[in-house]
C-alpha cells in the first residue's frame, strides 16, 4: 500500500521509554537529537533526574517578582507537577516515563492512559511511582482510565507527601479560549528535567473523530500526561501526542473528558487485575458510536464516469489521491486513501478503533482486455489480510460473487434498476484479549469491464460482529453504476441500463 510520505499521519505518543529505547523505536529522535545535540550524552541517571532538575531551579521566589508569564505559570504549578514512572516490579528499572498533575486536595492526579498502560495490562509485573519537582517519591495506584481519550486517574498510596500542594484548576467549559492564545505545556521531556514549553492554542484539530486540541508548540516524549495551561494557570488540555513530520504540531486532550473521568473515577477502588475487560467495554462503546456515525453519513461519489464508488465524507477522515502519470504505456490507475486520524492506543504495538477506506480505479484501455485482466487479478490477489500475532488471530475470509443491490437512478426520471457484478471478500480477525472485538477487511472488485474496473478496500479495526455486518453491508451498498454515466458502447452497463 503506497501512502504519500509527506502526508502520512503518524501521531507519535509522547511516552519516553527511557532515552535509549526512544532512539531505537521512534522516528522522532533523529530530528530531536539534531536540534538538541548535547542532551543524549550528558543525560543524568534516571533517579537523579528529578533531583537535578529541582536543584537547577531557584528556590521558590515570590510570585510578584517574576516577570515572564512562563516563569509565573511554572512557579505556581511546580508543586502540583509530577513525573509518573512505570517500573518493572522485579528490578526497579523504569520501563516508561510520563508526566502528571494533581487535580484536587486529596492528591488525585491525571496522566495519559498510555503512560500507565503497561501497569493497566500487567499489574502484577509493574508498579507505578511518582516523583515531584522537589524530589519526593512515592507509590501510585490506578483508579480509573479512559482508553478512548487516553486519560488515567491515579492516587498516591500515601497522600501525605502530596498534601497541601493545591490542585490544577480546570478551565470552565463555557469559557472558550481564542485561537492564538498563549498556552504553556508542562512536563518532564525525555526524563531530562521538568520544563515549560510555550506555544499557541490553535483550536480543535480539524477532521478528528475524537475531540483533540491543536497546540502550536513543541512536545517531546516524557511530557505525556502533563498539563497545558492558559495564562491564568488553568487546565486547557493534557499533553498527548505530536506529529514528527512537521514543526510544533502537537496535540492535547481537552478538559471535558478529564472532568468526566474525575467525576466517575474518584471514588473507585484501585485496579489490581489486568484491565482488558474494562478496555474492551470502553472500546465497545467507542466502536458503537463510530459505526453509528459512520453509517449515518452518506457516501461521497468518487466522480468515476462508469461506477459509483463509496468514498467516505471528510468530516473526520482525510483522503489522499494519487494517479499514474499521463504518459504511462501500461495500466493506468487512480487511487484514493481515506484514513481516520484518531486511533486508540491500547498498548505499544496495538492501535485500534478506526476505519480506513480506499479504492483504485483502473483503466486498461491502452493494454487490452487480456493484459488488463492479468494485472487486475494480481492487484486483487496481493491484498494482505494479516497473520496470527500476539494480539489477533489470523484472518478468516468468505468470498463470493455478489450482485450489488439494485440502485434507483437519480432524479424522478426513468429510474434505472441494474445490478453491478462484484467479487467480494470479507475477512475477520478476532482480538485475543479484547473479547468480542474484531478487525474486518472488505475487499471488492467490479467484474463487468473488459478494460475498466474498480477495486475497493475498507478496513475497520476494533469493532463488534454486529457493526462489522452493518459496515460491510454499507460498504457493499456503496458500489453501483454511475447513474449519470453516458452511454458507453464498451461497457455492458450501457446495455443493461438501456433495457
Amino acid at each position, binding site marked *: 500500500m503506497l501512502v504519500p510520505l509527506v502526508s502520512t499521519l503518524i501521531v507519535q505518543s509522547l511516552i519516553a521509554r527511557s532515552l535509549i529505547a526512544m532512539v531505537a523505536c521512534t522516528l522522532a529522535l533523529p530530528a530531536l537529537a539534531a536540534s538538541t545535540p548535547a542532551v543524549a550524552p550528558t543525560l543524568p541517571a534516571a533517579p537523579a533526574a528529578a533531583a537535578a532538575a529541582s536543584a537547577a531551579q531557584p528556590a521558590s521566589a515570590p510570585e510578584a517578582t517574576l516577570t515572564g508569564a512562563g516563569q509565573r505559570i511554572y512557579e505556581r504549578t511546580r508543586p502540583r507537577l509530577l513525573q509518573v514512572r512505570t517500573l518493572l516490579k522485579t528490578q526497579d528499572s523504569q520501563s516508561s516515563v510520563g508526566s502528571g498533575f494533581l487535580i484536587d486536595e486529596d492528591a488525585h492526579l491525571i496522566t495519559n492512559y498510555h503512560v500507565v498502560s503497561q501497569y493497566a495490562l500487567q499489574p502484577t509485573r509493574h508498579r507505578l511511582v511518582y516523583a515531584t519537582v522537589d524530589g519526593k517519591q512515592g507509590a501510585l495506584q490506578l483508579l480509573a482510565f479512559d482508553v478512548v481519550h487516553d486519560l488515567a486517574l491515579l492516587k498516591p498510596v500515601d497522600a501525605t507527601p502530596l498534601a497541601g500542594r493545591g490542585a490544577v484548576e480546570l478551565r470552565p467549559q463555557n469559557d472558550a479560549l481564542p485561537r492564538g492564545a498563549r498556552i504553556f505545556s508542562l512536563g518532564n521531556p525525555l526524563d531530562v528535567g521538568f520544563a515549560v514549553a510555550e506555544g499557541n492554542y490553535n483550536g480543535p484539530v480539524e477532521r478528528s473523530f475524537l475531540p483533540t486540541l491543536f497546540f502550536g508548540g513543541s512536545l517531546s516524549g516524557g511530557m505525556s500526561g502533563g498539563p497545558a495551561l492558559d495564562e491564568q494557570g488553568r487546565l486547557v488540555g493534557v499533553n498527548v501526542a505530536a506529529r514528527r513530520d512537521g514543526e510544533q504540531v502537537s496535540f492535547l486532550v481537552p478538559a471535558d473528558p478529564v472532568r468526566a473521568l474525575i467525576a466517575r473515577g474518584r471514588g473507585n477502588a484501585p485496579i489490581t487485575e489486568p484491565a482488558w475487560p474494562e478496555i474492551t467495554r470502553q472500546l465497545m462503546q467507542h466502536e458503537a458510536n463510530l459505526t453509528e456515525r459512520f453509517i449515518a453519513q452518506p457516501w461521497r461519489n468518487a466522480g468515476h464516469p462508469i461506477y459509483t464508488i463509496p468514498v467516505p465524507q471528510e468530516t473526520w477522515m482525510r483522503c489522499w489521491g494519487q494517479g499514474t502519470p499521463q504518459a504511462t504505456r501500461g495500466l493506468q490507475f487512480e487511487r484514493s486513501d481515506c484514513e481516520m486520524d484518531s486511533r486508540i492506543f491500547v498498548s505499544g504495538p496495538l492501535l485500534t478503533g478506526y476505519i480506513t477506506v480506499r479504492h483504485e480505479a483502473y483503466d486498461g484501455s491502452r493494454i487490452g482486455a487480456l493484459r488488463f485482466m492479468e494485472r487486475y487479478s494480481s492487484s486483487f490477489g496481493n491484498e494482505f489480510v494479516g497473520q496470527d500475532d500476539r494480539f489477533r488471530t489470523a484472518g478468516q*475470509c468468505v468470498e463470493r460473487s455478489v450482485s450489488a443491490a439494485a440502485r434507483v437512478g437519480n432524479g424522478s426520471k426513468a429510474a434505472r434498476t441494474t445490478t453491478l457484478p462484484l467479487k467480494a471478500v470479507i475477512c475477520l480477525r478476532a482480538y485475543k484479549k479484547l473479547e468480542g472485538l474484531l478487525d474486518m477487511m472488505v475487499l471488492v472488485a467490479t467484474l463487468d469491464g473488459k478494460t475498466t474496473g474498480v477495486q475497493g478496500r475498507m478496513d475497520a479495526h476494533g469493532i463488534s460482529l454486529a457493526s462489522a455486518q452493518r459496515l460491510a453491508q454499507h460498504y457493499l451498498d456503496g458500489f453501483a453504476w454511475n447513474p449519470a454515466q453516458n452511454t458507453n458502447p464498451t461497457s455492458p452497463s450501457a446495455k443493461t441500463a438501456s433495457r
Partner: protein
Amino acid sequence: MEPGAEHESDQPQRQDRLALIEVFERDGRMGRSASVRRWPLTLGRALDNDVVLDDPHIAAHHATLQLGGGGRLQLQVGDSINGVSVGQVHHKAGAQVPLPPEGATLQLGGVKLRLRLPQERLAPERALPALARAHLVGPLIAGLALVLLALLDHWLSLDPGADAAAWLPMVVGLPVVLTGWCVLWALASKLFQHRFDFLGHLRIALPWLLAIELLDLVLTPLAASLGWPWLWRLVAPLQLLLAVLMLRQHLMQVLPQSGRVVTTFLVAAALAGTAISLAMTQRATDRYSRPAYMSTLPLPALNLSRPVSAPQLVQELAPLAEQLAARVKKAREDEPPEGEGSRD
C-alpha cells in the same frame, strides 16, 4: 576349459545348453555369461569350481546347482559365511533350496547372478530410445506448445510497445533452463546407464511440463468463471502430482530396475513436502488452504458464477466470527496466566 560350462565366446552348441548363467558387474551391467551343459554345477572362488567367481565375500565352494528328486533343479548352499539369496529370500550355509523352473536371480557374496532356464518367460522386445522421426514428432509438438505458452505468458506481463530487450529473459532463459534440466538427467543416465541420454530425458520433460502449464491455464480461469474455489484449490496439488509423475519417469529412465524404490521415495517425498506446506499454511492462517481470493478474476464474458446478494454474504460473517471466538478461546488456554512467577 571346465567340463560343465563354457564361455559364450567359444563355439556355441545350442542343442545341449541346459541353462545360462549371467554374471553382473557391480554397476548392474552384465559382465560375462556361461552356458551350462550338465548338472551339477559348482560355484565358488576356488579354481576347481565350474564357475569361478572372484569376489572376497564368496567362499571357496560357495554353492552347487544340482538336479534333485523329480528332476527339479535345486541349490545347495556350501560352507559359506554369507550364504546365498534367491530373489529376496536369504539362505544360510547347508540349506537346500528348490529353484523355480523359469530361472532366478542369485546373490552370492557381492556378486549378482542370473540363472536363465529354458522355461523362462522372455520379456517382449523393448524399442530403442530411437532417433526415429516418429518418436520426435510428439515431443516437438509439446516443445512448441510449451514455448508458445511461455511466450504468451511473457507477452501478457509486458506493456504494449515494450523494449525488445524485455523478451531476452524469456527467449534465452527458457531454453537454458530446459537444456540444463535435461543435461543433469542425462548425466545421471551416464552415471548409471553409461549412456548420455539427453534426448530421452527431453522427451520425458516436454509433455509433462506442457501438462503442468496447461492445467494452470485451463483450471484457474475455469475456477474463476464458475466461482468454484475448490477447483482453484485443486490446481496446486494436481500440478504437484504431475511433477511427481514426471520425476518418476526421469528416474525410471536412469534406474529402470529400481521401480519400487523410486516410487516409494517419490511418494514419501511428495507426502512429506505436502505435510510441511500444509503445516506452514496452517500456522500462518489457521487453515489448510490460503484464502481463495488469490485466484484469478474471471473475464467479464466468462463470468458464470451465481452471485449472491450483499445481505447473504454479510450473513456469512456470523459463523466466521464463531470460529474465531473458538480460536481465541484456544489461544487463551495456551497462554500462561498473567504475571506468572512475579506475584509478590
